[in-house]
Every structure is written in structure tokens, then in C-alpha cells.
């Protein structure tokens, strides 16, 4: 009996900790996709202005890093530019007994950047695959100058990297010649200074570079990554951008999610250079 009592006392002390482990009064943390950092930061700025007393901290690191942080409990919200992988869902299930809550919060036209001086302005998915696996190495083969193609890309913890690998390279490995850079801004910067460079990343970052139109096949129409083409589904490299939570949203986080999906939150999406998601019911309902 003494042992049972000791056990119950110890257990009660542990449970008492629950009361002080709540989320009330602390900052909401958002971590993940580098593609979505500027969008997350802009959302945070506007929301904190409209809701004094709420503190939101936004950091990048890549979609994979954000999902790992969500599973480890070191962030409240994960921003991801790709869906969760089955292995990540399994880890989530093992720890929290949930598969996580997936909320599409914006759309992006994954953009292929080339230098503004480059005469090449459209490419097919197959040409992009051949370029990035190292089968096409000269701009001459694409109707451009007789110069080597300089490849720029992202690190493998990036959702953009995974999306490009899955949807363009069909799962093949990137060529060793690809210079891996830590963020989309770095890719845009490198391509803008390199007349023979090519890179990929979110549409919102495309400043000082030319955005290529992309065709599904050689005999298809090439569409530019404009709002209209992304929203009507014609641009072939359009993708959803997600927020992931461990459970269904509640309290302050639910209010934030509802706002992000509201016309005010989606207006920020458009201002930032991304594309809004179709109007849906609010999260957690």
C-alpha cells in the first residue's frame, strides 16, 4: 500500500506539471520552409499589429527541419512547401498518436529563374529534368548561347528541393554540378549575377531575374508562373504551401489559422507574391 501511495504521489506531482506547461501567454512559434519565411513573417507582422499581446516568432531552416521541430515539440506551427512524407507521419503518430493537421495556406508557382540577359525564356519539364540531372550541359542545346549551364539549387532539407526532385527529376538525383545554396534568395542572387545560370524557387523571390514559362511537353503550350496560370492550374509547377500542426488547432493558434485563411490573411499572400488558396471553411471545423 505504501508503494502504491508513493507511486500515486509521484504521479500526481508529474501531472501537476501539466498545469504549468500550458501555452497561455507564450509566443507562438512558426518554423520551416525557407520559401515561406517572408510570407510567415508578413503574416506575423500584420497579425501582431491587429492583435496586441500576441507574439509570433517566425524562422526558416527548411520544410524538413520544420517538420522535425514539430515532431520534437520545439515549434507550434510548421511551414512546409511540400506534404509530409509517410516516414514523418509515422514519427508523428508514434509520439502524439495523430497524423498532424495539414492546412493548405497558400499556393506557389515553383519558378525557374534564368538571367535577364539569357534569350531562353521557356522550357519543358523534360528539358528541366535533363538540365538538372546533367544530361544537357550547354545553353546551345536549348536555343541559347554556346555556353555551359551553371546550375543552382537548394539543400536537401528544403521542401523546394524535394518538390523539384519529385515533380521535375522524377525522383532522380541532382547532378553533382548543382551548387547548393542555403535559401531561395541566395539562388535568385546567384542567377541574377550569372548570365549562364539557372535556378529554381518560389515565385515571390523572383527579382532581377527572368522567370521561364514552363510546358508539360514539347508539343504543349508553355505557361508563365502568373497568378492567373497558377490559380487556374495551367502552370505545371504550381504547388500548395502548408501549415502543419500536431493536433487540431485550438485557442490562440486556431484564431491565427482562421485569420490566415480569411480574406485579410489571404490578401497578405497576394501582397507577398504568392497565390491565395480557394476560400474554405475555417480550420479545425
Amino acid at each position, binding site marked *: 500500500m505504501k*508503494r*502504491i501511495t*508513493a*507511486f500515486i504521489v*509521484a*504521479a500526481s506531482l*508529474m*501531472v501537476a*506539471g*501539466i498545469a504549468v*506547461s*500550458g*501555452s497561455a501567454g507564450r509566443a507562438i512559434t512558426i518554423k520551416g520552409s525557407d520559401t515561406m519565411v517572408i510570407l510567415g513573417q508578413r503574416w506575423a507582422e500584420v497579425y501582431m499589429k491587429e492583435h496586441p499581446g500576441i507574439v509570433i516568432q517566425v524562422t526558416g531552416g527548411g520544410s524538413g527541419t520544420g517538420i522535425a521541430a514539430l*515532431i*520534437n*515539440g*520545439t515549434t507550434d506551427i510548421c511551414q512546409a512547401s511540400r506534404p509530409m512524407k*509517410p516516414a514523418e507521419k509515422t514519427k508523428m*503518430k*508514434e*509520439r*502524439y*498518436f*495523430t*497524423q498532424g493537421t495539414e492546412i493548405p495556406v497558400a499556393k506557389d508557382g515553383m519558378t525557374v529563374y534564368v538571367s535577364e540577359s539569357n534569350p531562353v525564356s521557356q522550357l519543358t519539364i523534360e528539358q528541366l529534368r535533363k538540365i538538372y540531372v546533367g544530361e544537357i550541359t550547354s545553353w546551345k542545346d536549348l536555343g541559347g548561347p554556346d555556353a555551359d549551364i551553371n546550375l543552382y539549387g537548394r539543400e*536537401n532539407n528544403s521542401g523546394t528541393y524535394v518538390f523539384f526532385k519529385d515533380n521535375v527529376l522524377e*525522383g532522380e538525383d541532382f547532378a*553533382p554540378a548543382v551548387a*547548393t545554396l542555403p535559401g531561395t534568395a541566395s539562388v535568385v542572387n546567384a542567377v541574377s549575377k550569372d548570365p549562364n545560370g539557372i535556378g529554381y524557387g518560389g515565385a515571390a523571390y523572383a527579382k532581377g531575374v527572368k522567370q521561364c514559362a514552363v510546358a508539360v511537353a514539347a508539343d504543349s503550350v508553355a505557361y508563365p508562373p502568373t497568378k492567373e496560370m497558377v490559380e487556374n492550374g495551367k502552370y505545371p509547377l504550381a504547388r500548395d504551401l502548408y501549415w502543419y500542426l*500536431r*493536433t*487540431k488547432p*485550438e485557442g490562440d493558434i486556431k484564431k491565427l489559422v482562421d485569420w490566415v485563411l480569411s480574406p485579410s490573411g489571404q490578401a497578405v499572400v497576394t501582397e507577398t507574391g504568392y497565390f491565395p488558396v480557394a476560400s474554405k471553411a475555417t480550420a479545425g471545423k
Partner: protein
Amino acid sequence: MTLIRYALCASLLMGGAHWAKGEEPESDSLYDQLNQVTDQMAGVQERLAIAESDIAKLKKVKITGYVQARYEYHDDAIGSPALGTTSSDKKNQGQLLNRFFIRRTRLKAAFQASPNAAGAVSFDGSASGVSLKDAYVSVTEPWSQLTFTLGQFNWLFGYEISFSSSKREFPERARWARTLFPGERDRGVKVETSFLVEDRYTLGLQAGLYNGNGVDDKSFNSNDPNKSKDVIARATCGLGFLDFGVSGYWGKQFNPSDQSIPAQQPSTTDKIRYGVDAQYFYELPRLGGGVLKGELVAGKEPKNAKGFLSGDTTRNVLGLDIVWAQNLRERFQWISRLDFYDPDRDTEQDQTTTYGLGLIYFWDGNSKLKLIYEIPKTAGKNEVKDNTITLEWVYTI
């Protein structure tokens, strides 16, 4: 005037020459410096490319592991929950024992050189020494997506046997798993595949061929205990909120002490097990996710596994465990378990039912503290005083 003009021109020319003379070395110096910087940059880029290549290779090696440090407080001086044993010796009853020990220290290195080939090796360090736990190579045939694994790995029966001890709620597996599948591993070959159907649910099929007696068998390191191989097959279905599976085991028990049969033809006895398992996941407002999961195993085993004779009979075994675990917000988890094992359904008063309850506190993403109380109850007069309190810290690398 003309002279002055000539003098001026000459001065300008001389000055220009002087300027040109003075500038030329400066221009050379800048050019040299630019060349030097360009060369340095090329050198840095070369070193960076080598470093990136080395990092890419290192990223293919994944090192994982965990430590389970434990404090146990239990009634029986001989019985060890860690080993799944209890003592029936009266002199040990009521002698309180408490101790600190390291239950498991695992280190696993997995290498994936390409998407279709991988290898892994893992070791366990404990009070009894260091032992090899896993050592296997896996290849995935790209067209059919069938994965073949050869080496030493988990028996693919049920879900708890292959569920890592670093993630499992209770410190030890259910009694039927510890008894029927000691060590959880064996050497053999397995083939497995899974399908995603309509983007909604997953179907998995697995089949394996094993030596049969497992890593805890004394002859394990040098011998296959019998000529025939044991077969295990498993099918699973995952709906997200509900995962379930069925498993079958068809094997032979070698009987070395059976003197009635010539040594060249050792006798064997059937060892057959069937299992069903299910896990139901749900979410409660404010508290978070929870799971209700269970496994039921029924089988036929040699009556006396060590000294079985051809004239002996077999026994029917039955095992069941049901776990209910519920998150209490982010950092706490409530766990409870009913663990039942009947080693012979035809014999009365040999069943053991263990009731377990506890709390898990997640210190951070890598470590958790478990406090668990377990009450084993053996039917009838065999009941002994062997309740246990376990305090365990699990740190995952």
C-alpha cells in the same frame, strides 16, 4: 608664343609619360591582386566542392541510438521485470529489492548509398556486455518495389516486436512477446512491399524465412538449431486512424534430447502461432491524441521446449495485451496496459495477468521520463508478491 606652346606640349607629354610610368606599376599591382584573389576564390571553391562532396557522403550515414537508464523497486529478490521472470521461491518473497541499472544502450548505424540499397548494423550494451542486435542489407527492386533484406533483424510478427524500445510506452514488451519471441530477432531473409491505395490507405505484405530460435538461443552464434527454416508472413492495412494486421508463424522446434530417434534424424515438433493486432488513434479536445491498441496471439508450442521427446505432447498458448495511452497536452502521457499470458490453456492456474499504469514526461524532443507501476497476478496458488515500480529515463540520439 610658339616656343611656349612647344614647351607646354613637351611638359604635358613628359607629364603624361610620367603619369603613365607611375600608373603602370599600380595597374600591374591591381591586376596581380585581382588574379591572386581569383586564384584564391578558385581554391576556396575547389575546397568547398570537396567538402560538400564529403558532407554528402556523411549524410548517407545515419547514426541513431538510445540509452535506457532505470531505477527499479520491486518485491521479489529474484524476479526481474526486465527479464520477464518472477520467483516462486518463498524465501525471496517480500524481500524488497531496489536497484539502478542500464537496461539498454543501443547504437545503430545505417548507410544508404542509393535509393534502392541500404545496410545497417546495431549493437546493444548492457550489464551483460555488448551484443550484436541488427546486421542486414536491404535492396529494393525498382520495378516491383519489393524490398529484400538478408541478415539479422526483427521477427516480423505483430507490431510490438519490431516497435523500438525507445518509442514503446511500457519499458518491456508484453509477456507473450518476451516468452515466444525472446530477443525479438533472428537471422534470415525477408521480402516486403507496400501499396498506397487511392491515396487513402496503405496495404503492406511481408514474408520471412528464419533460422528459428532467435538471438537469445545459446547455439545462436554458431548454429542453426534445425535443418528446417521457420516461416513468418504478415499483412497490414493502415487507414490512418486505424491500423491492423494479421501474422502467421510456422516453424519447427528441434528436440536434441530425444534419444528415441537417431542423431542423424533429430525429431522436431511443430511451433505454430497466429496473431491479430489493431491500433485505433483518436484525438480529444485540449488533451491531444490517444491510442487504443491490442494484440492477440494463439499458438501451439512443444510442452517442454528444452527436453521435448517425440512421445510428448504440445501445449496451446494464448497471449493478449491491450494498451491505452493518452497524451495530456504536450508533455505528459498517461499509459495503461493489460498483459495476459497463458502458457498452457489446458492447465489451470498458470496464467499471468499484469496490470500496468504510468506516466511519461517528455523532457524535450530527445528524452523522456517514465514512472510505471506494474502488478502481475498469477492465477490461483502460484500468485507471488512481485509488484514493481520502474522509473526510467530514455535518451534518444
